[in-house]
């Protein structure tokens, strides 16, 4: 883990309450999908953990949602501003465990880490299909970016304004994609339904309120099938069998 200064290249609203943040730094950035960074915000006591959506040779692309005062502050920061990040943090997805084709299942902003995962899978010569669920059309993000990689994207919206009406599980049932491993990130009830519906091996990215973000305060522990595990360091990605819903 390192503490590094990044500067903001762009920080733009891309969907309802959803921002895309592009950062650059001195030197190389090496991170994998499912890992995250912990951002210090001026005037806020604790850092904000945010998953990595894409890695550039000397930068990062992050997506975040404005949910409180801290993320509202972040959304007001302008190009050129400095941010202090801790990185790389967490244990991420395992694209190498996919044999041939993967199903990427995102709920809301859970789509963000799946973008980097899709790139990693394609680089390994695997196939990937994405199913992304949102509440409504104006929350949709990353669908076009995934399609631009060549990943087929199927959408579901709760209000039926775009794609399958209902949940990601409804879209999966409608599309019947072929895959040998799934990867999911999103709200807990969605991931629970996904794990119950799919019998292939799968990986789940959990979220929890964090203290240090790096495994030494034990503030984000969840009880798993193999005992207490720190979401920030042992996760955030766990095999689906590990998660006790």
């Amino acid at each position, binding site marked *: *883990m*390192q*503490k590094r200064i990044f500067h903001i290249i762009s920080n733009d609203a891309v969907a309802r309450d959803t921002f895309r943040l592009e950062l650059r730094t001195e030197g190389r950035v090496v991170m994998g999908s499912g890992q995250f960074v912990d951002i*210090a915000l001026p005037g*806020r*006591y*604790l*850092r904000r953990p945010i998953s990595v959506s894409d890695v550039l040779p000397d930068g990062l692309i992050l997506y975040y949602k404005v949910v409180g005062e*801290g993320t509202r502050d972040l959304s007001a920061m302008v190009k050129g501003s400095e941010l202090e990040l*801790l990185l790389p943090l967490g244990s991420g997805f395992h694209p190498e465990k996919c044999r041939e084709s993967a199903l990427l299942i995102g709920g809301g902003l859970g789509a963000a880490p799946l973008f980097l995962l899709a790139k990693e899978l394609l680089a390994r010569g695997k196939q990937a299909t994405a199913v992304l669920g949102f509440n409504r059309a104006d929350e949709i993000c990353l669908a076009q970016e995934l399609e631009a990689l060549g990943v087929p994207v199927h959408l579901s919206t709760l209000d039926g304004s775009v794609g399958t009406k209902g949940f990601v599980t409804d879209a999966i049932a409608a599309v019947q994609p072929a895959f040998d491993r799934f990867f999911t990130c999103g709200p807990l009830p969605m991931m629970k339904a996904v794990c119950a519906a799919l019998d292939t091996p799968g990986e789940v990215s959990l979220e*929890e*309120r*964090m*203290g*240090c973000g*790096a*495994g*030494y*305060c*034990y*503030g*984000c*522990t*969840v*009880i798993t099938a193999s*005992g*207490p595990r720190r979401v920030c*360091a042992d996760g955030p990605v766990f095999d689906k069998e590990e998660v006790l819903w």
Partner: protein
Amino acid sequence: MVNHDLSVSLCGIRLQNPVIPASGTFGFGLELADSLDLNVLGGISLKGTTRDARPGNPTPRIAECTAGMINSVGLQNPGIEALVSDKAPALRRIYRGAIIANISGFSVEEYAYNCARADSCPDIDILEINVSCPNVHHGGMAFGTDPASAAAVTKAVKAVTHKPVFIKLSPNVTDIVAIARACEEAGADGICLINTVLGMRIDIKRRKPVIANKMGGFSGPAVFPLALRMVYQVAHACRIPVMGCGGVARAKDVIEMMMAGATAVQVGAENLRNPMACPEIIAALPALMDSLGINRLQDIIGIAE
């Protein structure tokens, strides 16, 4: 800049500097070994340990506050045997400074058992006794909120170890001096204070407490003046050394704690927002000492009368 002496002597143990990450904010040290040079630290206070492994409290365990945070980890730990047979020896292989075991218990007998086990471990230098735990035999009242209970724990622990014993006091009391004196009279070798201040936050959108356990320990820069006042009071009322703890975030705070009477200074919550906090504070001390005309840190202990 002249040569500055940052070393202090704590119960006859020489620390290269007085800065120690506080228990619960630095794991067992091992978690951070790849991220910073542990050997710059004067000591390391390890995660609080009970007899049996504990999974800790449900989440959320953390709540952000203005100038601080609340935690309710619930003493998640792997148990005393893992400490003495695995964690402390593993840390000793990579760390030369003082290793402080933080011991908890839910009965006087458990404190004594845990300390006897810790005493058998040559890799542990100092025992720090967390008396903020609830006494299961007395309606769950914390040992550290009553002079007689705190003294009973101290006496039981001193009977089973030759290592220096520091009692870590809770600030959630009406008379901290009475409790510190009771510990000193019962044979404590030192006092560590303060533990966290009981606090609470409510999520006004969900209309529920933020912390799953409702309340938790508040720490961070907001508690520094409270901690400093208690360190001052205890250091002046007792003859045994004090480790000052509570809201320390900068080199200036270390100097202030020492001037109040602390021989060593622990850094807690700051580690959670900045894992490099302790090395950065230690690196900043010589220049600050220079500007204040301090040659030896040992000379300023309790100097503010």
